[in-house]
């Protein structure tokens, strides 16, 4: 590796995006548009959810149509623990509640990851169309579970009175919260990049290309897929925990199946199997929603056909288009 090599286009794009993300809050505040900081936090959080889906969708070839279930589970973990921490009661009569981010966020990951382990263990017994429909059905099951869970707000959802507490950080401040989201996302992208380039990631990619051949070589593909599925679920749970903090509200709508669809759209729009791409996809989709909805109340009439066109003609996604062929 020569230190003088020409900068790769991919590195330029990524560094540019990172610099932009770092500079955004001061710029937004200078323009007196604090709303942009909130919108950008939303983009980062959904970018995290979409990147976690890309781990199994893009690299593992598992078309999971229920990813929002894990986002919602993470959100509810934060919400339920918060409510119990607030009124001093115990969760299920066993555990005390809490609003400490260092406890609650890992708890959200643990719960969502465990859930993904169980759902994945059943769903991965099948494949193809069955897998798509089963993950969708399980997500709907959780959705209806939380809709009928009157103790925690049912259909109306659960309001948090404040964000989680973190030592040394004031998460209630939108700018601080934004940088925390950015830090979490960058950390995940770094770890995720290492993961997909590791032996584990190589096996997952091998499974995507030809599962039977991987089995013939001797890899227990089911276990690898399940581990990938659980990791993706745990990270989705973390994004759910961030959403709960961002909006200070959780409701079953978080895990509605259209949300799973949106996350999937972010992955495709940004570029599947690139890990960084889905973050760009999240930005494009959420910004598009913002812009289109200011033009017309019927923005979905535009978004729907646009989506079909992207599927038919734009397979490399925004990220692939930005960095040229060098998405790796």
């Amino acid at each position, binding site marked *: 590796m020569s230190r003088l090599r020409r900068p790769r286009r991919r590195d330029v794009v990524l560094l540019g995006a990172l610099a932009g993300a770092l500079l955004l809050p001061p710029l937004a505040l200078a323009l007196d548009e604090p709303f942009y900081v909130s919108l950008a936090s939303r983009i980062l959080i959904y970018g995290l959810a979409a990147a976690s889906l890309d781990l199994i*969708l893009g690299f593992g070839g598992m*078309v999971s*149509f229920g990813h929002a279930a894990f986002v919602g589970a993470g959100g509810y973990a934060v919400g339920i623990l918060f409510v119990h921490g607030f009124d001093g009661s115990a969760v299920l009569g066993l555990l005390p509640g809490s609003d400490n981010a260092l406890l609650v966020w890992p708890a959200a990951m643990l719960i969502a990851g465990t859930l993904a382990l169980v759902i994945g263990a*059943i769903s991965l*017994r*099948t494949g*193809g*169309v*069955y897998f*798509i*429909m*089963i993950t*969708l*059905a*399980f997500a*709907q*099951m959780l959705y*209806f*579970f939380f*809709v*009928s*869970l*009157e*103790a925690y707000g049912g259909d109306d959802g659960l309001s948090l009175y404040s964000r989680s507490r973190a030592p040394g950080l004031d998460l209630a401040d939108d700018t601080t919260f934004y940088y925390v989201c950015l830090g979490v996302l960058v950390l995940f992208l770094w770890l995720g990049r290492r993961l997909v380039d590791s032996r584990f990631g190589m096996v997952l990619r091998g499974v995507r290309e030809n599962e039977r051949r991987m089995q013939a070589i001797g890899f227990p593909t089911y276990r690898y897929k399940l581990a990938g599925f659980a990791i993706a679920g745990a990270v989705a749970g973390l994004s759910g925990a961030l959403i709960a903090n961002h909006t200070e509200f959780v409701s079953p709508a978080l895990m509605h*199946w*259209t949300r799973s*669809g949106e996350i*999937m*759209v972010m992955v*495709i729009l940004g570029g599947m199997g690139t890990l960084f791409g889905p973050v760009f996809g999240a930005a494009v989709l959420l910004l598009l929603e913002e812009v289109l909805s200011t033009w017309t109340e*019927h*923005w*979905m*009439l535009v*978004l*729907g*056909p*646009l*989506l*079909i066109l*992207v*599927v*038919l003609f734009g397979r490399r996604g925004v990220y692939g288009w930005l960095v040229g062929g060098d998405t790796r």
Partner: protein
Amino acid sequence: MNGLLVLEQILNGLQLGVMLFLLAAGLTLIFGIMDLINLAHGSLYMVGAYVAATVAQLTGSFMLGLLAALPAAAVVGMAVEVIALRTLYERSHLDQVLATFGLILFFNELVRIVWGPQAIFMDVPGALSGTVEIIPGAPYPTFRLAIIGAGIVVAALLYVLVARTRVGMLIRAGASNREMVGALGVDVRLLYTLVFGLGAALAGLAGAMAGPLLAVEVGMGEGILILTFVVIVIGGIGSIRGALVGALLVGLVDTLGRAFLPTLLRLVMDPATADGVGASLSSMSIYILMAAILVLRPRGLFPAHV
């Protein structure tokens, strides 16, 4: 809980099962033959319901509404197939999911523009608005019985069509080996469009019949679409027989669970907890059923392709 109540709920379960079958039959044929996962199937159900409601309001006749809904849904379905879905047959399932997800967004918004965001409520047709005492002592709405009857008739017709006619032979042949059917000189594209139209008409019929029972509203197709997926997964993709068994199973389990689980749980818990747990459990019951069946038979009860 008494026996009459149970019988009544069983009839309700059958009625839901029949509705699900109408949707699942079309969807499973489309899966089986074209290998296409079509999320927009629920939109055709919605179109059927809206057309039926509008025509029924204009003419005052539910039957005319029903008769208008069938061709309307079929035409919309075939148009969608020719314009958008035809290019997707060769694509991956992921592409199909995303593109048909886009179609759902489009249709929901289009319906919202044409008919407005308010739900439409249809009246039960006069001739069927009464009740019948098929079980002595338990009057049951005639309209629901009519739906069950219509579903049985459609299932029988579908069986005759698929098992006894030339078109049905081609459909079965297409389901087991598409390339071979094409190589033998059958116009596969036309066959696909016709099957799609048939599936759409069935979805439209279900939508039209659901109109007087439920509110006709934007997004009504999506909830039932996911139930239909559960039916197909349970029954086995591509199998009409599986769709029938799965639909009845899901209809019965869902209805009976909702009706009786809270009461049953009251025997072992205090009423408040029982109601809460019962409501949660019964809303999850069909998914638990699906998971159990998949553990035993990963390809459904009647796998069409072995």
